[in-house]
């Protein structure tokens, strides 16, 4: 053997197995012995025989190993499993409550985590996501007002790239609704005008066409797959062209994959920004008109704050009258944070907290019920201990049971999520799917393990610590006393959460009602709005004359936006007026372009002066109307007839219109300037009477007749108004479902607990009844116990709810008042629910014949 210099290593698996077989300290030398013998045999009889020998040795020793250790362990495990199952079956009701509560909690947490991960995934699919930034500007006023905006001058992008070497790429981005002509049909599409670098910066992959040349020529258009299909069906789009306006025929140079929902940039097609100059004679060196979004790409690892410092003053440098300084916001932050540092992220935090809270409530329930059940299992624990179970093995048993249950609950939860997900998607307006990715499975297992550890640890610790002598001497009342205080706290906590959520729901509902009923200053019902293209605008007179012949159409008007939509605005420093003092200043004014019948169509009234009138030829371009807030802010006395200077233009104020809410109620009323010389892109038609459907058909026919080939796409004005509060409505629905769930879970928990506590007090009740207590007295005794907890829960929930509601309402400029009786009513409702929950048990206990409960003494 010594002549063989080469020594063979034993197979790794065999070595490992050997080590397992000898778990004592000697394992190392034993493995060494086998290695030596293995080498010896290998040297003498060959490696094959040596292997054979080694494995034979392992197999021989495996058998006793299995028999002596594994089999016994299995036996014990089988016993644990059997006892656990028997316990579950013995108390079917409680087991179901326990499992169901936990499953609901888990399902909620899964749904919420789906939503949260979805919100957090916005714009992260871009390969460069970390290096892309959105350019914004801030305007500081002497009054301390700061106005943030993503709209920049068109010339900013190229100037940024040429002045700052850190900026690798830049693209401008502006969305316009244009009517595009296909081979057969026309479509109104959201067209994004962008720089050629757009496709390289953002990861919108081209399915057809060349990424380098697709947007090079001003005469080119890149369609998304969806819009390509709308224009050309299944035929190959690359050789086809699309008509923009009436003159320009543009070839399709690329087809890109559909835009993922998790993108803030949503458009139907891309057109090079150079075509703005080519087609519309747009001045690409303009520094005065703020309308373009701008994105830049920085190199990896460059701090955007440093770049920001270099470019901050660039607008002021090129435009002496401008006051805006430039900043950069990471692309991935845009969806979640608005520039004031608020935004969706708040909701993400709220819902994450809710998810964790609901999971906690479910866990607390589980704990509370499992602890209560320990009364019944104390005997078992005592016996096990007497027979020789160690504390660790008991701990393992209860933990194992808890893990088993929570994994059952996870399976139930998954089934629930699958059932509920379609509705949840509807509610959240998303299309989330439950994908069993590695991360998800790990996460769910993690949650299940956490739940079982959290929920199982208390009973496991309490039960395994019980002293067998005490238990077997039936002095268990004493051991249970200790957990009373703890359980009281648990129940109180979850009821306070339920009360908190209910109060929240009520106040969100009240605020939504308040918004619904608030007089916005204009008429809301029976108005339809539609966008129009150039063809309609040209034939508007004829169309209006024709439509107004119908008695069901009250009036119609054109405007550049519907009254509730976000208006364009003019910087405050461009505005001067007759009699302006130096200290007077306007922090910008919103601009609304209208034509004659706008006021009548929307039912707005004048405070002073007159509205635009066809009899005054100067109204077109020379007259303006202000709202009351503007007059107040400017401090003009008797404004009608005074002059207003807008940059170089001079206008006359012909009237003051009564304030109406031209923005959502999140915002205070702000100054508004109404003019007539604006590009008018919307038609609003006010209907009257009941025959809405017929009137709509009539409008459609008339438009088709006068302007053949145009489409009739309309929206009801009140629906547009509603959509301003989409976020809040969604929140209302979500919080409502969560409140329902919280109540359900808390009541389930209370029900289980109540039945156990009454069971424990059976003897006491029996004695009370023997001594002459009435059924009513006993019920009172039992329910008052629980009412105390719920009242305590109220006291915890109220300040929390008050604080959160005030915080939430701060998002609105106009708020419903916080009424204190709502707190009381919510608390009372929850108390009533809690009493109903425990009443069944109390009633049953109170009605029991005392003989039943006392005869075993």
């Amino acid at each position, binding site marked *: *053997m010594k002549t063989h210099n080469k*020594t063979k*290593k*034993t197979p790794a698996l065999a*070595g490992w197995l050997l080590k397992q077989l000898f778990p004592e300290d*000697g394992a*190392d*030398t*034993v*493995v*060494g*012995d*086998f*290695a*030596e*013998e293995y*080498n*010896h045999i290998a040297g003498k009889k060959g490696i094959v025989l040596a292997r054979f020998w080694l494995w034979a*040795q392992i197999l*021989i*020793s495996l058998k006793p190993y299995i028999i002596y250790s594994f089999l016994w362990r299995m036996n014990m495990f089988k016993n644990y499993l059997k006892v656990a199952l028997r316990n579950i079956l013995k108390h079917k009701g409680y087991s179901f409550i326990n499992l169901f509560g936990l499953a609901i909690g888990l399902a909620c947490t899964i749904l919420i985590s789906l939503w949260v991960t979805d919100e957090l995934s916005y714009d992260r699919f871009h390969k460069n996501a970390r290096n892309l930034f959105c350019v914004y500007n801030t305007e500081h006023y002497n009054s301390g007002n700061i106005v943030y905006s993503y709209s920049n001058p068109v010339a900013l992008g190229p100037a940024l790239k040429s002045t700052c070497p850190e900026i690798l790429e830049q693209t401008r981005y502006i969305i316009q609704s244009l009517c595009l002509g296909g081979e057969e049909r026309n479509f109104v599409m959201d067209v994004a005008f962008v720089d050629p670098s757009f496709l390289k910066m953002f990861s919108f992959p081209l399915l057809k066409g060349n990424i380098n040349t697709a947007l090079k020529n001003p005469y080119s258009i890149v369609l998304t797959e969806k819009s390509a299909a709308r224009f050309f069906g299944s035929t190959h789009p690359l050789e086809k062209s699309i008509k923009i306006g009436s003159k320009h025929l543009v070839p399709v140079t690329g087809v890109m994959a559909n835009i993922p929902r998790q993108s803030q940039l949503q458009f139907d097609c891309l057109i090079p920004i150079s075509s703005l100059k080519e087609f519309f004679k747009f001045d690409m060196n303009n520094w005065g008109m703020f309308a373009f979004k701008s994105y830049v790409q920085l190199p990896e690892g460059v701090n955007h704050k440093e770049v920001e410092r270099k470019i901050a003053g660039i607008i002021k440098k090129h435009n002496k009258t401008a006051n805006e300084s430039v900043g950069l916001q990471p692309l991935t932050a845009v969806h979640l944070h608005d520039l004031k540092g608020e935004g969706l992220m708040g909701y993400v935090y709220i819902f994450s907290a809710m998810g964790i809270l609901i999971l906690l409530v479910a866990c607390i329930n589980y704990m509370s019920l499992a602890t209560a059940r320990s009364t019944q299992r104390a005997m078992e624990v005592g016996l096990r201990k007497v027979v020789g179970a160690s504390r660790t093995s008991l701990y393992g048993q209860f933990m194992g049971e808890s893990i088993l249950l929570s994994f059952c609950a996870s399976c139930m939860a998954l089934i629930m999520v699958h059932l509920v997900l379609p509705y949840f998607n509807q509610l959240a307006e998303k299309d989330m799917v439950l994908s069993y990715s590695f991360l998800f499975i790990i996460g769910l297992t993690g949650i299940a393990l956490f739940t079982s550890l959290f929920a199982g640890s208390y009973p496991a610790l309490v039960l395994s610590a019980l002293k067998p002598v005490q238990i077997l001497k039936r002095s268990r009342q004493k051991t249970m006393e200790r957990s009373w205080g703890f359980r009281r706290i648990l129940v109180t906590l979850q009821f306070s959460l339920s009360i908190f959520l209910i109060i929240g729901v009520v106040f969100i509902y009240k605020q939504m009602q308040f918004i619904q009923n608030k007089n916005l200053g204009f008429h809301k019902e029976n108005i339809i709005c539609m966008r129009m293209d150039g063809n309609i605008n040209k034939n508007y007179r004829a169309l209006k004359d024709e439509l107004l012949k119908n008695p069901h159409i009250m009036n119609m008007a054109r405007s550049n936006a519907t009254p509730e939509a976000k208006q364009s605005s003019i910087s405050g420093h461009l505005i001067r007026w007759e009699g302006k003092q130096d200290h007077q200043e306007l922090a910008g004014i919103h601009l609304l372009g209208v034509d004659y019948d706008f006021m009548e169509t929307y039912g707005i009234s004048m405070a002073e002066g007159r509205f635009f009138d066809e009899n005054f030829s100067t109204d077109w371009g020379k007259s303006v109307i202000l709202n009351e807030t503007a007059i107040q802010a400017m401090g003009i006395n008797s404004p009608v007839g005074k002059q207003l200077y807008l940059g170089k233009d001079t206008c006359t104020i012909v009237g003051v219109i009564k304030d109406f809410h031209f923005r959502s109620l999140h915002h205070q009323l702000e100054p508004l300037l109404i003019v007539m010389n604006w590009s008018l892109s919307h038609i609003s038609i006010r209907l009257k009477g009941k025959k809405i459907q017929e009137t709509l058909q009539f409008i459609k026919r008339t438009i088709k007749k006068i302007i053949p080939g145009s489409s009739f796409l309309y929206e009801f004005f009140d629906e547009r108004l509603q959509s301003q509060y989409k976020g809040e409505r969604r929140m209302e629905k979500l919080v409502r479902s969560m409140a329902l769930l919280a109540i359900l879970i808390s009541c389930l928990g209370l029900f289980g607990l109540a039945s156990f506590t009454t069971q424990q007090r059976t003897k006491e009740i029996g004695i009370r009844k023997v001594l002459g207590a009435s059924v009513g007295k006993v019920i009172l005794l039992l329910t008052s116990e629980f009412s105390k907890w719920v009242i305590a829960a109220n006291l915890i929930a109220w300040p929390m709810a008050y604080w959160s509601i005030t915080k939430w309402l701060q998002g609105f400029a106009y708020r419903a008042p916080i009424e204190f009786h709502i707190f009381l009513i919510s608390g009372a409702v929850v108390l009533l629910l809690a009493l109903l929950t425990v009443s069944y048990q109390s009633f049953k206990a109170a009605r029991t014949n005392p003989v039943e409960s006392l005869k075993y003494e």
Partner: protein
Amino acid sequence: MNLLTRTEELILLAVWRLREKAYSVEIRKYLKEVTASYWSFGAVYMPLDRMVKQGYLVSSLADPTPQRGGRSKRIYRLTPAGMESLSRIKKMQKTIWEGLPEPSIEELK
């Protein structure tokens, strides 16, 4: 009186004889040679462990060798108690053989 079993006696003698080479592989090899029968590792380990517990043997770790995959040997040495029990069994054997001739078939006739 505590008497050694035959296996224990054999192993103690092997340990004595092998001295600083007295570890399980060598002991087993020696036993196989002497008894001309198969000894499994387990048959060596069990009495060794037992006699360490009884105080007849002590063990210590020695340097590893490459054949052992870098693992150390456990070398066994006799303790005074071990030596005592050997001498006891030897005495007993002597007494029990005293006066008897060499065993042969002839004696049975």
